[in-house]
């Protein structure tokens, strides 16, 4: 059997934390674990990747990987695969991970499983469907390497204390047309970071517009140290920026308390918040799926309950 590789996503802030989770899992599957880190900052990330289980880090600091997202990395990975023949490659389930894995699949013709929550071997992985109510074990077949995109926070990131040999990678310039990044823009979010907040208060379609999010801001301020998030429905509607989004294509949060206001509980949202220690759901629809997973489900009008709760929290704080 060939090695297990982890695609190490390199962001402007360093190694994407999900990469370290994948390395932790990979070393429980295989003694021969390598990370592939492509883009500016890759070489300096090698020590951290080694300390989480990569024995080899294939690295390149070439700007081309950041300037042409997905495709250059996929073609470079394809060349490495041709040389060193891994059996399994794990990717973080991010936009970047999806783009690289999706392009690579066209080159290798190998299987690509998305949304994995656990990996048993290069032949079998696990996912959850229907809001996490069903567990599905999937047999993987076809040519190696098998490609698996893993949901963030499926595993803890634990250091191994190891060190990695760094192998410098030559960039493969793909044939044909490739998209190019010509500008980068940051959109700053205010308040505590969603992923780090002790309490997350999230609003969904039930809020009906952008203005009611100020009610959630008020409650967050009354609780103190709380962050405001949103479901994809509210982000799609343009009520709040993408940075608020909790769920499959947004942030994964694990706060002490998650308060879902006017959120029905679609699968795509649930996967981003089901790791919360305690869940409170406020919904006027008694059949909303979110009420089934809530520790405290409140059936009622959030436009009355949220402001009253803010008052109650303030009253207790001052008494």
């Amino acid at each position, binding site marked *: 059997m060939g090695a297990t590789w982890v695609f190490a996503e390199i962001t402007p802030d360093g190694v994407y934390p999900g990469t370290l989770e994948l390395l932790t899992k990979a070393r429980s599957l295989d003694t021969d674990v390598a990370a592939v880190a492509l883009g500016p900052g890759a070489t300096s990330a090698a020590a951290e990747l080694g300390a989480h289980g990569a024995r080899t880090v294939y690295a390149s600091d070439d700007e081309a990987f950041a300037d042409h997202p997905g495709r250059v990395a996929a073609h470079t990975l394809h060349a490495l695969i041709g040389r060193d023949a891994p059996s399994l490659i794990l990717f973080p389930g991010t936009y970047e991970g999806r783009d690289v894995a999706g392009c690579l699949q066209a080159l290798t013709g190998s*299987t690509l499983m998305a949304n994995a929550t656990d990996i048993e071997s290069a032949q079998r992985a696990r996912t959850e469907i229907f809001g996490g109510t069903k567990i599905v074990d*999937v047999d993987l077949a076809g040519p190696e390497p098998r490609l698996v995109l893993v949901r963030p926070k499926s595993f803890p990131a634990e250091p191994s204390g190891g060190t990695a040999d760094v192998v410098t990678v030559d960039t493969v310039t793909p044939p044909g047309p490739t998209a190019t990044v010509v500008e980068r823009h940051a959109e700053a979010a205010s308040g505590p970071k969603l992923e780090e907040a002790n309490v997350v208060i999230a609003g969904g379609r039930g809020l009906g517009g952008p203005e009611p999010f100020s009610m959630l801001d008020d409650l967050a301020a009354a609780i103190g140290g709380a962050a405001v998030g949103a479901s994809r429905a509210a982000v799609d509607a343009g009520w709040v920026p993408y940075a608020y989004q909790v769920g499959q294509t947004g942030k994964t949060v694990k706060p002490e308390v998650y308060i879902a206001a006017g959120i*029905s509980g679609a699968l795509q949202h649930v996967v981003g918040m089901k790791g919360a220690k305690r869940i409170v759901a406020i919904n006027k629809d008694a059949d909303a799926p979110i009420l089934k997973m809530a520790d405290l489900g409140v059936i009622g009008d959030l436009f009355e309950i949220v402001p009253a709760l803010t008052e109650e929290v303030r009253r207790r704080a001052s008494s």
Partner: protein
Amino acid sequence: MNVTVLVKFVPNPTGTPALGPDNLLVRDAGDGALDPGDEYGLELALQLVETGGGEVTVVSMGPAEALAGLQRGLAMGAHRGVMVTDPGLRGADTLVTARVLAAAVARSPYDLVIAGVESTDGYTGTMPTTLAESLGVASITAVRKLEPDGDDFRAERQTESGFDVLTAPKPAVITVTAGATQPRYPSLKGIMAAKSKPVETVSAADLGVTDLAATQTVAAVTDAPAKAGGEIVTGDDAVVRIADFLADAKVI
């Protein structure tokens, strides 16, 4: 400019999904719909041809029932449809799907192919990139704004921390984020007109794709451990109960 939009017919997004005896998602329960995530890209396509001329083709793959999704696209204003339906494609994985759809797309000239970022039933989010590489054209994912710029497209791509601007030469494949546009509702006139628009129905063999074997098979489906039943409250006590709950959790 000719735009091809990939659309998917999905089980009712607000209903309760179910697995059949073969452990595949039940797709013919009669209450399916065009994936709401596809309407943003369809709207973008319609706007592009309204300003720049050309035609919008909608392409879908699925069981016979999925024609209803294609028809909604035609009712919104697309000019023609291609429906790929084949019993051999039941349970198709992303590689087979990408190869089949790439072959369907390549049958007619296109400047742009648009898909959703991810489907509402599968959430895979990789198929359009695989399709682009199979077609040998550039791709940009998670696009929230796009405009033609001479021989190129110029797109804003959603990122974790903001957005990037990318350029890609025509033809290109993009995925469009939900919320990128405000999809129109089909008018009565549009619904009537859709009935006479050309729809071509093809099989995988018609497209020259013969290897339909899926590389992923479901080995087992089990129920996740049930979560202990939570407490449900209604009425006037709710506010005090939530506050007590937050106090128990030591967050207030």
